[in-house]
């Protein structure tokens, strides 16, 4: 079991990124009952915006700009499109699949498939034994931890968080106290877009990005959202950490080629055994 600490840290990093993506999927689904296949494109957009802005105005200013761009696009897409598809599953799916294809091919055409690197953070930190950990990855772990904690706190203490949770718990009751799902859905999409952009920025910090980056993480986001129980925030977090560690350990010690199979198999098993996911208290099935 060489490099155990490094492997676990990498697993935690992946798990953190999956949490950010899965939270967006779960939040938008919980409020609007739209399963957004275009969610991964918020990651791609955020990552590319960060890399491009970092080249132009420096990394410090690029971060808020990237979040702004992704959040703005998410809001625009919701107002123009997703808001009309609430209540019609198939229409929402078709719309988001079209968006996925459109954004991905558009990015492919504009930026080509050549991987692009964001600003690099040099240096490594010595861990116990001979193990080394790049500083960039530690920073990513730190950022995801902070963002997840802030999000969890905001979901309990701020009015946006309360509105999101109220709508997720009982749409009708929420609408009677002035929180219609169609409006709260806008908050959900903006929050999801910003969280995805944070994930995109983090990804750009540690690995080169391509227009297909978002799609790969979208799949993982779905897996953790479903395993955790769609609509459940704690569930998403636990599932994401499980998946991240499982992938890191499996890749290191079992078989590297099967990385993506682990999560998929886990998801199928969970869907068979507990269709509502692990943490879903209400009888809302992942359907």
């Amino acid at each position, binding site marked *: 079991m060489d490099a155990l600490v490094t492997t676990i840290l990498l697993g935690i990093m992946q798990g953190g990124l999956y949490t950010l993506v899965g939270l967006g999927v779960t939040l938008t689904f919980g409020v609007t009952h739209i399963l957004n296949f275009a969610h991964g494109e918020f990651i791609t957009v955020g990552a590319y915006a960060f890399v491009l802005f970092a080249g132009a105005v420096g990394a410090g200013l690029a971060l808020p700009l990237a979040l702004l761009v992704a959040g703005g696009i998410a809001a625009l897409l919701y107002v123009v499109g997703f808001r009309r598809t609430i209540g019609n599953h*198939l229409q929402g*799916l078709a719309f988001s*699949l079209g968006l996925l*294809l459109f954004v*991905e091919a558009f990015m492919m055409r504009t930026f080509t498939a050549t991987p692009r690197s964001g600003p690099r953070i040099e240096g490594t930190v010595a861990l116990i034994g001979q193990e080394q950990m790049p500083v960039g990855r530690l920073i990513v772990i730190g950022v995801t931890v902070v963002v997840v904690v802030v999000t969890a706190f905001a979901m309990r203490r701020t009015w946006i968080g309360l509105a999101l949770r109220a709508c997720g718990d009982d749409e009708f009751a929420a609408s009677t106290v002035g929180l219609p799902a169609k409006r709260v859905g806008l908050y959900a999409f903006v929050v999801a877009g910003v969280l995805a952009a944070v994930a995109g920025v983090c990804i750009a910090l540690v690995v080169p990005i391509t227009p297909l980056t978002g799609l790969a993480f979208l799949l993982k986001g779905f897996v953790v959202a479903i395993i955790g129980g769609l609509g459940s925030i704690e569930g998403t977090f636990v599932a994401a950490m499980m998946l991240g560690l499982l992938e890191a350990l499996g890749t290191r010690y079992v078989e590297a080629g099967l990385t993506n199979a682990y999560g998929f198999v886990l998801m199928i098993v969970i869907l068979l055994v507990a269709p509502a996911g692990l943490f879903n208290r209400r009888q809302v099935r*992942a359907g």
Partner: protein
Amino acid sequence: MSARRTRHGAGVLAVGVVLLVLAFVVPENRVLLLNAFLAYGALVVGLDLLVGDLRMMPAGHAAFFGAGGYATVLLYQKAGLPLPVAGVLAVLIVGLLAALIGLPAVGRSAGFSFAIITFAFGELLIQLIANVPGFFGGSSGLTIDWGVGSDMPFDFSVYRYFTLWLVVVLVVVMLVVVLVRNSHLGLRMKAVRADENGTRGLGFNPTTYKGIAFVLASMLAGLVGVLWAPMNGFISPDTLGVNQSILLLGMLIIGGVGRITGALVGVALLVTLPALFDMDPVLRTVLVGGLLAVVALLQPSGIVGGLATLWTRLRRPKNPPPADGPVDATLEPAGAGR
């Protein structure tokens, strides 16, 4: 019911005859274009069995097309089976795969896990192919040397020879769809689409019908793959990715769900036209994605569906006479003075 089946069947056969004539008269440099139309047409018409008839949205239909192609090539190359036997076996393998993948997913009512699991299946298949290059040829794909010489019937080129087979496949797929739609199976599928719990109350298990439709549609997609791979002489993981699947969905939804004409119009608009004008494939993908989003929002029944609605509206008289009761002349308020 029976009259409609005869009418639709005759329509399919007429289309088949037209395509067969086309297969003979199309100039040599357009044969591949016709082949693409036929293959995509068969894929999209088969996909409609799920989307149009059951309101299921598979996000990985192309994976079964690719699985059919890969299975044929591997059975032909590694196991040394003759091409027709390999093709039949490949279709059966695809059906088995579809049953394995689909059965856990089709039972869920809202169709989200179905979309996700089919989506994940496509991605997983790509991973598998890319990670086992020794057997599956890796991400660069497999070349097929299938040994059919130059002595084709009617002095045809190889591609034109496959055009005949693809015409047969398209006609078979359309016939299957027509027969299913006008059968008891089709009626039950319609009932499942309308009200799943109600159907269950009548004593029919919706999961059964969704499962049957999914396996059937996937086998039809596999059948297209069986012919496409040897025709093309090459198969790569790109042909079974999520992008391909969404392209297929896009053609179907833009053309119009629930109708064979809709599917064929979608394919003609989004495969044949761009190829005629030498459009860059990536640009075409951008176009299909954007159109899919717009059509899904504004006209969910697609172009053909929209035209059909327009047609019935135009044919209907402006002021239909009241169905019963005395007809008074006071349709307009007195003194409107026009």
